[in-house]
């Protein structure tokens, strides 16, 4: 192994870890929703991307500055998250978990079709910031745009942790995830907690979608599948229901993706990332941080 290979490897690893924070956010979103409802919302990645398009629309309509585009992407995705809750989860019977799961698959395809129709399937430019800035650490360069992505995602996580651990809303959310029956008997309205969780998860997804598009500089409908699949792999690796697990899982997926990109090329990259999914599901189905603690 020569010096240049090691540098290339480290460079891939650093890029991957920085970008992996977007997968971590998507993973956290899956985990939050699963935590309060014990249901998987497969439309989540598509809803996040659709929200990101709302930012694009603002950018096209009145040439909105990048921070406003990012903000509208996040909020738009929060709103779509709440719509998904009402369409797929609020009124489907709780005793048939398949109903909401299939509804969310249908919603995934529906949102995808709407986005393709509205955008004519064409990629749009998405604002990217600090594109030309780099920080040089010896021969490894840290890209400014990726550092920005990383920074925004870390701030989003910090705000989420503050919400979950310091505010009544967060405590109510955690109470519902741990003991839904006792939480209801503490006067907590589970519907309201579910609604807010979908909204907050949606905002996180919108941030992840915006940052993904910002890192690439374009937005296209195919990003939705990547967000969904990589986010799911992140939670499988980390353990569904664990927020620290989703963060670690997201970083690992980001790192693995870039290392496979270096070693095997762009067309083979995702094949190996998918193999990670089966590896974990077979050998460690609970994930790294999977809790065995049950609830009813």
């Amino acid at each position, binding site marked *: 192994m020569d010096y240049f290979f090691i540098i290339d490897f480290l460079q891939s690893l650093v890029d991957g870890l920085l970008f992996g924070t977007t997968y971590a956010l998507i993973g956290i979103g899956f985990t939050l929703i699963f935590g309060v409802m014990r249901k998987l919302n497969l439309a989540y990645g598509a809803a996040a991307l659709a929200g990101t398009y709302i930012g694009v629309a603002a950018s096209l309509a009145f040439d909105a500055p990048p921070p406003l585009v990012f903000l509208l992407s996040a909020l738009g995705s929060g709103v779509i998250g709440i719509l998904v809750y009402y369409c797929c989860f609020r009124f489907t019977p709780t005793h048939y978990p398949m109903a909401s799961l299939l509804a969310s698959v249908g919603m995934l395809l529906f949102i995808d079709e709407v986005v393709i129709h509205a955008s004519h399937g064409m990629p749009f430019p998405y604002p990217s910031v600090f594109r030309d800035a780099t920080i040089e650490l010896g021969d490894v360069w840290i890209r400014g745009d990726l550092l920005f992505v990383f920074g925004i995602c870390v701030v989003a996580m910090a705000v989420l942790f503050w919400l979950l651990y310091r505010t009544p809303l967060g405590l109510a959310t955690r109470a519902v995830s741990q003991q839904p029956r006792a939480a209801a*008997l503490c006067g907590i309205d589970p519907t309201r907690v579910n609604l807010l969780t979908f909204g907050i998860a949606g905002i996180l997804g919108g941030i992840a979608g915006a940052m993904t598009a910002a890192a690439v500089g374009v937005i296209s409908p195919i990003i939705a599948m990547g967000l969904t699949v990589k986010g799911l792999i992140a939670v499988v690796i980390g353990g569904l229901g664990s927020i620290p697990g989703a963060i670690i899982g997201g970083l690992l997926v980001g790192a693995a993706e870039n290392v496979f990109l270096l070693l095997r090329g762009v067309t083979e990259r995702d094949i190996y990332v998918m193999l990670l999914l089966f590896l974990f599901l077979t050998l460690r189905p609970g994930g790294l941080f999977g809790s065995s603690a049950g609830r009813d």
Partner: protein
Amino acid sequence: MLTLENLSKHFGGVHAVDGVSLTIHEGEIFGLIGPNGSGKSTTVNLITGLYAPTTGTVTLDGYDLTAMAQHERTAMGVARTFQNIRLFGNLTVAQNLWVAQNGHEQRRAHFLPRWFKAGGEHSPDIDELLKFSRLHSKRDLPASALSFGEMRRLEMARALASNPRVLLLDEPAAGASLEDGQLLAERIRDVRDRGVTVLLIEHMMELVMGISDRIAVLNFGRKIAEGSPAEVQANSDVRAAYLGSKHKDEELIHA
């Protein structure tokens, strides 16, 4: 104050609760007893709203609770503890109380400012409840780190944090020794002295007979007796019901 009228719950052909009517008066400790499978737990679940009754109504101070969801009944003043403890294990002791206090209060005030306001676990109300439950030194420990007895005390404190009118205690002595039972009896009296009406569902006869003002006995989902502890103990139907289940009989006679 709490009135059950002709309350029934049928699961398929099983009549778990069958036409039960009860009136629990303000400020009393009311014991609800009966052999295993007599419908006590189902009755509790009908009062708190986990099940919708097949027939009948539940009213509190004249307000009909029958159509309300569980969290709405909590806001009306119904609280309960669980036989198998259901604490929020990852939350601290104080946060467990804060959640209950807040879940209750958020219905009164506009919820957004309240739900994003940090640090509410340091309120005087919560301090008072922690002292009342002798959990003050453990306030910042996760609830899962408590001993069994402490968990039971925290469950009761959490139920009190929602500021209930009536507290349903579902077998609070389960797993407790006889000495613990004595302490528990004092605690239940303390709760009543705070102005909370108590509905006690319990197997430990000594406890129920010792502290209840009145007692109702269920068997096969029907109420077979109601009255003072002495009246209930003297009731021949009650003796027959407990003779059917061997272990409880001795407890009843010796209590």
